[in-house]
């Protein structure tokens, strides 16, 4: 691929990128060994926002850990909510109210779009285009307003409960979501005309930052990173949870493995999420939004349980180990950006620094989720 160093001299220098750098989207630091403008070695340095969520999990009851889940990936908090309630429901054998399953999927997918929109704006901003960020935030605002009416918060949601959700959605929400679908479908061609077909963007992304399918496998990459490398892997299809198996949607896959492919996967996913929301609203059954008789104190049987969901960044899984008491014995949080970032060190070797930043942006990192 182009943009690789033709040869290497012996003179190198160390460049410190971050932890306060706009291109790292949070407190990520990257120690770069540079040969002129080319990267010889890159070492991400983590932990600046490490809060030890896993230890916190061992110090509180199963229900008390719920708000923590929205504070890891703050851009797709509802998927993290979803994963945690699902693993606890699995451990306790709790049935979820049917209407709640639909509400969970509808709100999670809205949240996914808002996450992709923020990524889109910030990514294009990284590449030097400022105004798409404002357009993206305009659309995102509609989702935040909509979710605020049912969840009560705009970012770090804690909306799902064991067995259901804490608030029913009303007619206004349904009408608002329908209006948003129409609006977003009208906006997508504008985004593609304004950004995707922009020659500068194409030159910055096409054939830049190659990630092969084998590399994804060795590093455990999931989500749009893997799908941009031709791997058809989406937890929603692969091991369907909730009601995803009853909904009709496609998994966008691009085989090129460059930054453009990852960009296209996320743009296409917005449309797929709209389809899911549309069907969800259509099929939305009546009934209670939380299962009856959920015990106040949960004591799952001894053993360990795993549950994975597809977040905006890839597969998020929780391994919950229970010793039969009301507090988790161990909670392992397998976060997607963490695994996706591991491959950066190998993928950026020999690249120009500005291209490596495009690659970094195309990985869509959320640092609080990496550091946990």
């Amino acid at each position: 691929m182009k943009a690789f160093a033709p040869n290497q001299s012996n003179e190198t220098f160390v460049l410190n990128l971050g932890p306060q750098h706009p291109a790292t989207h949070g407190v990520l630091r990257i120690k770069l060994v540079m040969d002129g403008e080319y990267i010889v070695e890159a070492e991400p340095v983590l932990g600046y926002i490490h809060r030890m969520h896993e230890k916190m999990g061992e110090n509180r009851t199963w229900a008390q850990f719920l708000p923590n889940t929205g504070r890891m990936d703050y851009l797709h908090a509802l998927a993290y909510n979803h994963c945690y309630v699902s693993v606890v429901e699995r451990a306790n054998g709790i049935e979820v109210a049917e209407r709640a399953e639909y509400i969970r999927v509808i709100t999670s997918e809205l949240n996914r779009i808002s996450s992709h929109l923020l990524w889109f704006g910030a990514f294009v901003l990284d590449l030097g285009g400022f105004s798409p960020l404002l357009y993206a935030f305009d659309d995102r605002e509609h989702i935040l307003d909509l979710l605020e009416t049912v969840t009560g918060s705009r970012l770090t949601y804690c909306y799902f409960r064991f067995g259901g959700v804490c608030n029913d959605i009303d007619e206004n929400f349904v009408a608002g979501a329908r209006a948003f679908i129409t609006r977003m479908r009208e906006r997508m061609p504008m985004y593609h005309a304004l950004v995707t077909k922009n020659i500068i963007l194409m030159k910055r992304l096409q054939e830049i930052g190659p990630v092969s399918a084998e590399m994804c496998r060795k590093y455990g990459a999931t989500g749009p990173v893997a799908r941009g490398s031709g791997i058809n892997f989406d937890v929603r299809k692969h091991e369907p949870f909730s009601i995803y198996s009853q909904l009709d949607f496609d998994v966008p896959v691009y085989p090129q493995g460059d930054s453009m492919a990852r960009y296209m996967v996320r743009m296409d996913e917005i449309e797929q999420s709209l389809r899911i929301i549309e069907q969800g609203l259509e099929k939305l059954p009546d009934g209670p939004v939380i299962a009856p008789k959920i015990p106040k104190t949960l004591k799952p049987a001894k053993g360990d349980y795993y549950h994975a969901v597809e977040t905006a960044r890839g597969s998020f899984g929780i391994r919950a180990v229970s010793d039969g008491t009301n507090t988790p014995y161990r909670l392992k949080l397998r976060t997607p950006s963490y695994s996706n970032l591991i491959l950066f060190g190998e993928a950026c070797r020999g690249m120009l620094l500005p291209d490596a930043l495009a690659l970094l942006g195309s990985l869509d990192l959320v640092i609080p989720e990496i550091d946990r």
Partner: protein
Amino acid sequence: MILSTIRNALAAIHPEKIFETDYARKGFSLDVTVSADRIEEAVAVVDQNGFFIETITGVDWLGEKAAQQKEAAAKVAEKADAGAEDAATGKDEPLAPGAGNQVEPLVDDMEVIYDFNHYSDFCRVVIRVRIPRNAPKLKTISKIYPAALWHERETHDFFGIKFTGHPYLVPLLLPEDADFHPLLKDFNK
């Protein structure tokens, strides 16, 4: 079927335990326990079958052996009380192999759990290794899966498990001079 393929392939390296689990209840399909010196071999088999690595983590089983001994003693006492009554116990999957009756200094276990998944087939494989808690040491698998470079560093951060052969086992998420391991059950600070 990938599940039977990987099951047979892993059974060939003589794991301590191997059984299929109920996915709906547990969230994974195959549960394998290998001895510490077999881990590289087991992971190589998983790699050859095209699996990708999800994560590596640890669990500290401090106090487990003592609890098991107590339980066993209680059972013996109960049996003595009940006399010749048959106790057909429907035992649920034990968390660990049943402790014997030997009286020796109790060394609890540290468990290292490797999670693998497959991109095209529906199969989650969990590989477990038990190592003594007082000197936790295990071979690195970073030569097979480079992702382990980070996962093992994180596990070392949180549990103090030494991964021999790891080229750069320095703190990843904890401060660079951290000498504590917060997920140990006897950690208090």
